[in-house]
């Protein structure tokens, strides 16, 4: 369960990114955050990953106000949240396998578990045959699959995706969406910020629309609202 309670964010340069946001996402939900650039959706994502702090309000994740987390607790909080980005962010000098295993090494998983779990998730995202390839040898879609594998390898309860299809052609983007949907079906809450209207319209999921820092629409099985 993720809850935004009266959350506002003003950046240091004075930009008002979010004004008094209230939003509630239940476990296992699939939510699109949509809106034009600068509408506030990326700010919302960064607040969940604790990359930034809200200027005001509370953000409750699994019963805990994460704005009150101690600095030491942040890494452990983040282990429960898988993140994927538009630019994949894979380590170029590591193979696909190593990139995914790296996420498990960081949380000091056992070797035995790493050897079992990494091929497992690579199979899930359809990259088993590319385990030994380096990121530069992969297509954009394959790189995003690797990033997804890394994001879910530690079984987080939430997957946060910030424009995960932004760099992909429509067909590849739909492949990625199928994988994200599958991850959601396994019980992981998915929060995806995007402005890809075709994807939002095709998926028929909950859509939260941001405009100039406020939520202007929150629809079950919604569609992308055109700017007008």
């Amino acid at each position, binding site marked *: 369960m993720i809850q935004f309670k009266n959350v506002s964010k003003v950046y240091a340069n004075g930009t008002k990114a979010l004004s008094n946001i209230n939003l509630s996402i239940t476990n296992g939900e699939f939510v699109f955050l949509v809106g034009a650039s600068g509408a506030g959706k990326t700010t919302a994502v960064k607040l969940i990953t604790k990359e930034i702090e809200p200027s005001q309000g509370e953000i409750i994740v699994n019963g805990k106000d994460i704005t009150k987390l101690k600095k030491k607790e942040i890494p*452990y909080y*983040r*282990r*429960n949240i898988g993140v994927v980005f538009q630019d994949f*962010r894979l*380590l170029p000098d590591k193979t696909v396998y190593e990139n995914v295993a790296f996420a498990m090494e*960081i949380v*000091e998983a056992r070797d035995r578990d790493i050897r079992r779990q990494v091929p497992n998730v690579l199979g899930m995202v359809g990259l088993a045959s590319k385990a030994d390839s380096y990121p530069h040898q992969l297509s954009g879609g394959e790189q995003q699959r690797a990033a997804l594998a890394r994001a879910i390898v530690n079984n987080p309860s939430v997957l946060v995706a910030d424009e995960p299809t932004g760099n992909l052609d429509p067909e590849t983007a739909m492949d990625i969406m199928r994988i994200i949907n599958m991850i959601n079906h396994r019980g992981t809450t998915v929060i995806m910020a995007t402005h890809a209207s075709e994807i939002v319209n095709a998926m028929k999921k909950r859509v939260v629309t941001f405009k100039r820092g406020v939520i202007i629409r929150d629809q079950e099985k919604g569609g992308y609202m055109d700017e007008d």
Partner: protein
Amino acid sequence: MKIRTFRKFFKEGVKNIFRNRVMSFASIAAIMSALFILGVVLILALNLEHIAGGIESKVEITIFLDKSLGIAQTRAVINQVENFDGVYEVVYISKEEGLAEWKQDLGEKGSLLEGYEGRSNPLPDKLILKIEKPEYVEGIITKVRAIPEVDKVNYSREVVDTISKIVRTARIVGLVIVILLIAVAMIIINNTIKITVYSRRREINIMKYIGATDSYIRWPYIIEGFTLGVFAAILAGALVFGGYKFILNKGGLLSGDNSFLSVFKLLPMEMMLYDIGLIFLLVGCGVGVLASILSTKKHLNV
């Protein structure tokens, strides 16, 4: 922390050293220079203290007699000082003997003193008072100074005092230089780590997203600093002791072939090797680790 994780950190840290060869070399050179100076100061101080101790243990007072004294007057002075408390032996060295001794000390250059024999001998007669314990020295000197026939009193205390003054000055000057060099080393290490952190900022960023703890991210850098310190300590040790050994081998005069110079014999290397080696390792690694901790705190923003 698991051993496997630690091994990974160690590999990572050492890899970083080779990745930034130039900066690593500069860091090592800086720590090494600081340790080298530290070593020179320590060896110098230990040897000077040793020499001072040697002089002090030979408690002697040298009395130079007025040149105009006759034999009878000299006799009287000898009788007088022989009765002072704490004096167990009085050695009379005539000016002729003094000149001969001086000639011998000069060895081949002894011919320089030719022509000063007999009447033109510029040296005074002297008495050497051997004292039982240093505690007596003060009283004896006061009494000796009161004898009108005595021209000058020389006590090794003055030499000892001079040496301890030199030791003290050398320590302070050395310490200041060492502190400055350590500061330079810290700045260079700071820059080295800044560069590494910058070149790996993507990786560090990803690690943070995945949930790596601060210490997990910092450990490789701390190991990097530690390893730089070890390298610097080993090199500085080799340099200092190599140099010292060279001086020991070359310095025939200093090595005590001439018995009268035996107090100036340098300390054998083995006496200092372990202590100074340990100091080098502790200081080197300490500086490396401290610089890493400070600079990762600053640049990793963790």
